[in-house]
Every structure is written in structure tokens, then in C-alpha cells.
């Protein structure tokens, strides 16, 4: 991971926008561009005043809030009207279905009979982290839950139901908690902006921040964000391993639980060393193991 890349580089943003224009066959000054950018400037003051709170994932967002920047047109990356872009996704689905059926004639008939995924993926909603794609796997391989900043709340029914179903009913062999570099949720938790409904969601991240305040304050802003990404994955793993279904599956059939970090800047996954000490395992079992 290259922490230096956490910094926003306007030149690179401009390059991306140029590429978007060129894909659409347009010059940046083309007046036929949809006027979406004129709307997105009317943001609440706390959002438009600066790039934060989601700064590490928000260069494009920042650009949108800056009317003087040519990147503001990035709010709508091509000359395609919104509905046409949706239609194009539907068209791409037809192409994908035809191609997949050609390359793997047995795949769809098999999928229709049921799923037997080996992996449960608990990751971030971030568009840059598509699990099945970056794992080089196919439909049917990975059961997936993705939320803001891959946070595992102990009482969250949504992720709780996913974990229960995947471990107990589908009997997956691996549970993966995957964080990633440039995580906007982590950046927000490193800042102190009020974010409405997102605040209670990000609370576990702030708790981790509080518990590791001295360590995080001793690091540069970029290194601290990266550290919090890692600590958040470790915290998520703890929550996963406190669930009765997971503990039982580890004991009874060798279910493995992994912590990964995905580097958005290189596309590469890295596994964290998450080996627990004998003592940790013992206390966890004593406190959390539940049976019928």
C-alpha cells in the first residue's frame, strides 16, 4: 500500500475528467453537456465548504462542489442522459448473459438449482471494491454483504442475518472481513463533522479511534487513516467471532475467518495476520459460546 496516494491530486482528477470527456467525444467546454453540475453546487454548507468529511474517497465529490473547476462536469461523466445510462446497463446485462452462456454453458443451468458458495465476503459498499471481480471468481462463488466501511455492529440484524445464513445454512468454509485503502467512512470517522444518520452507523469506528487515540495521533494523517482501516477490520473480525454460529463452526468444522485489506491503488489484496493467542481463544469461548 502506498500511503502517499491518500493525498488528493487535482492534476490526476483533471486527467480522469479529460478521459471521460474524450470517451464521450466531447471537449470540456462543450455546451451540450447536461447542466447537472449547476445543481450539485447547491449543497448544504457543511458539505460544500471543504472536501472532508469523506476526503480520501472524495476528490471527484470535491470537484463537483467547486464551480470554478473543470472537473465539476464530472458529476455526469458523459453526454448520455441519465435514463440512457440505465438502459446501457441493461444492454450490457444481455451481452454479459450471452457471453457467459457461451463461455460456461453449464453455469446458468447449475445456478438455477441452488448455491454452494465457499466464501462469505463482508466488505465495503465502495464502488471500487467489487468482490467477485477482484477475486477473479464467478457467480455462485461468493455470498456477499457490503455496507458503509465494512463495519460489523454486534446488534445489526442485517449483517447478523447474512452471517447466520451463510455459516449455518450454506456452511461456507471461509468468512472474510475486507477493508480497503482510501475508505471514505474511515476518513469521516477521523474527522468531526456531523453527518446525520451516518453518525450512529460510524460509531464503532469512533470507538476504535478512541481506544487507539495515542497511536493514531502519533501518525501522519494518511498513516492514521490506514491504521484505522486495519483496526476496523480487526474489530470486525472480533465481532464476527463472537457470534455463536461462527464459534461453533470454527470448533466443529474448521471454519476459517480472515482479515484482508484491499489496496484500491494497485488492485491487490493483502491478508492480515489475525492469529489469536490461546488465551484470547479461551476467553472468547468462555464468554461467547452458546448452544441449544
Amino acid at each position, binding site marked *: 500500500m502506498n500511503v502517499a496516494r491518500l493525498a488528493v491530486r487535482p492534476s490526476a482528477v483533471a486527467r480522469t475528467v479529460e478521459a471521460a470527456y474524450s470517451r464521450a467525444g466531447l471537449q470540456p467546454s462543450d455546451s451540450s453537456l447536461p447542466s447537472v453540475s449547476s*445543481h450539485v453546487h447547491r449543497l448544504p454548507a457543511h458539505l460544500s465548504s471543504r472536501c472532508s468529511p469523506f476526503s480520501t474517497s472524495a476528490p471527484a465529490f470535491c470537484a463537483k462542489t467547486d464551480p470554478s473547476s473543470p472537473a465539476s462536469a464530472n458529476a455526469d461523466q458523459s453526454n448520455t442522459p441519465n435514463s440512457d445510462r*440505465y438502459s446501457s446497463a441493461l444492454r*450490457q*446485462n444481455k451481452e454479459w448473459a450471452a457471453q457467459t452462456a457461451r463461455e460456461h454453458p453449464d453455469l446458468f443451468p447449475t445456478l438455477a438449482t441452488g448455491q454452494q458458495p465457499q466464501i462469505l465476503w463482508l466488505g465495503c*459498499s465502495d464502488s471500487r471494491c467489487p468482490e467477485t471481480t477482484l477475486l477473479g471468481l464467478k457467480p455462485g462463488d461468493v455470498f456477499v454483504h457490503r455496507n458503509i466501511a465494512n463495519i460489523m455492529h454486534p446488534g445489526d440484524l*442485517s449483517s447478523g442475518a447474512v452471517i447466520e445464513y451463510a455459516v449455518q445454512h450454506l456452511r461456507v468454509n471461509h468468512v472474510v472481513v475486507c477493508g480497503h485503502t482510501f475508505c471514505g467512512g474511515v476518513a469521516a470517522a477521523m474527522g468531526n463533522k456531523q453527518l446525520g444518520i451516518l453518525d450512529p452507523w460510524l460509531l464503532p469506528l469512533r470507538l476504535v479511534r478512541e481506544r487507539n487515540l495515542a497511536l493514531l495521533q502519533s501518525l501522519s494523517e494518511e498513516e492514521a487513516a490506514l491504521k484505522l482501516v486495519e483496526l476496523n477490520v480487526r474489530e470486525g473480525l472480533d465481532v464476527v467471532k463472537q457470534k455463536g454460529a461462527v464459534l461453533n463452526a470454527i470448533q466443529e468444522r474448521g471454519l476459517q475467518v480472515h482479515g484482508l485489506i484491499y489496496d484500491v491503488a494497485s488492485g491487490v489484496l493483502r491478508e492480515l495476520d489475525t492469529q489469536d493467542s490461546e488465551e484470547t481463544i479461551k476467553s472468547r469461548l468462555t464468554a461467547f459460546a452458546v448452544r441449544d
Partner: protein
Amino acid sequence: MDPAAPADSCETSHDVHKSLETIFKNNREWALDKARADPVFFEKLADGQAPNYLYIGCSDSRVPANEIMGLEAGEVFVHRNIANLVPNLDLNVMSVINYAVRHLHVKHIIVCGHYNCGGVKAALTPADLGILNPWLRNIRDVYRLHEKELDQIADESARYNRLIELNVEESCRNVIKTAAFQQSYLEHGYPMVHGLVFDLRDGLLKDLKFDFEGTLEDVKKIYSLS
């Protein structure tokens, strides 16, 4: 999801280890391929995300969001839970919608269900599924809201398929009831909300042609937050 057919694990620990190695190998190959095809692919991603779509779909392994829509990394923000639900009290999905609409300014919200959904099937089954019960209760409520229509469908699998579609529409309706959606739509004219169903037998997406503007009008009287 198919609760009737749980996967039977017969892997040895050696196989398990091997399958994880394969994943890291696959990942490196994918990253190399991408970088070869477009040397600045990851550099651009590292500069930030500006996805046009928010996809709310099922956790089912057979319905991977990017693949079925032919979209690349960076193009679609993704939330997946059991049976693509959007429950009012679920902080998880509400945070995703809030972030995608207010901070990423997505232009389309796609709720995608799929036929053969185990979550919907489980909700039609009279069984105590422990902590899954409260989650699946939402689907039973969708049945109750459309009881008349569903009860008139004699064929069981046709009734099941229709409930899957109605469940998608209900999730779309729940998206429309959020303040984030309402404010953004009134101010900017987006995001648009779409309901899709994925068919596992042929890999095709069916557009339910969800009338989100009409629905917005309908729910306004009671649910308007703007």
C-alpha cells in the same frame, strides 16, 4: 439463497487452504490484467469514486452486481443483504442510501431481486429460523400488503415469483420514503429508482418498470420529508 439445499462441506483442510491461495492468485492476475489493459486504471480509482449507480441487491452468491450489469470497478456502489430488503429501521441500508445519494450523488438507485430467492422462500415457510425471523418478517409483511393478489395465483411457483417482484417494488417504495432520496430528487431530478429481477436460468435482468414518479406522488401525503 436456497435453504432447502444447504451446501455440504466435504472439503479437507488442505483443500480449504488451497482455495484461499487460489483467490490471492486470481486477484493478482486480475490486477495485472487490468493494469496491462489500462496503465492508469488503478491510479484513477485511487483518486476517488464517482459511481453513477447504487445497487441494492441480495447477498446470494449467484447474483454479483458488477458482473450482471457489465460494470467495472468504480461504477456501482453496492449494498447486499438477505432478500434485498430496505427496512425502515435498518441503519445499515439507510446509511448506504444516505451516503450514496448525499455524498456520491448517484444518478440511479437499482433495487435488484432474483427468482429462486431463498430468503423469500424461507419467509413463505412456517418455520422458526431464530435470528433470521425478524429480518424475514419484512417479506411476510409484503405478502400481507398484497394478500388478495397473491392468493388469487393458484400456481405456487408463479405466486412465489410474484412475491419476489412485489418485494422488489416494496424496497423501491421504501427508498422513495427516505429524506435523502426525496430532497435530492426534488432539487436535482435524480436519482431515479428502478426495480429489477435477475433470472438465474438465463442470466437476464427483467425491468419491472417501477413507476417511481407516480409512487412518489402517492406516498407524498404521508411520507413527505421535504
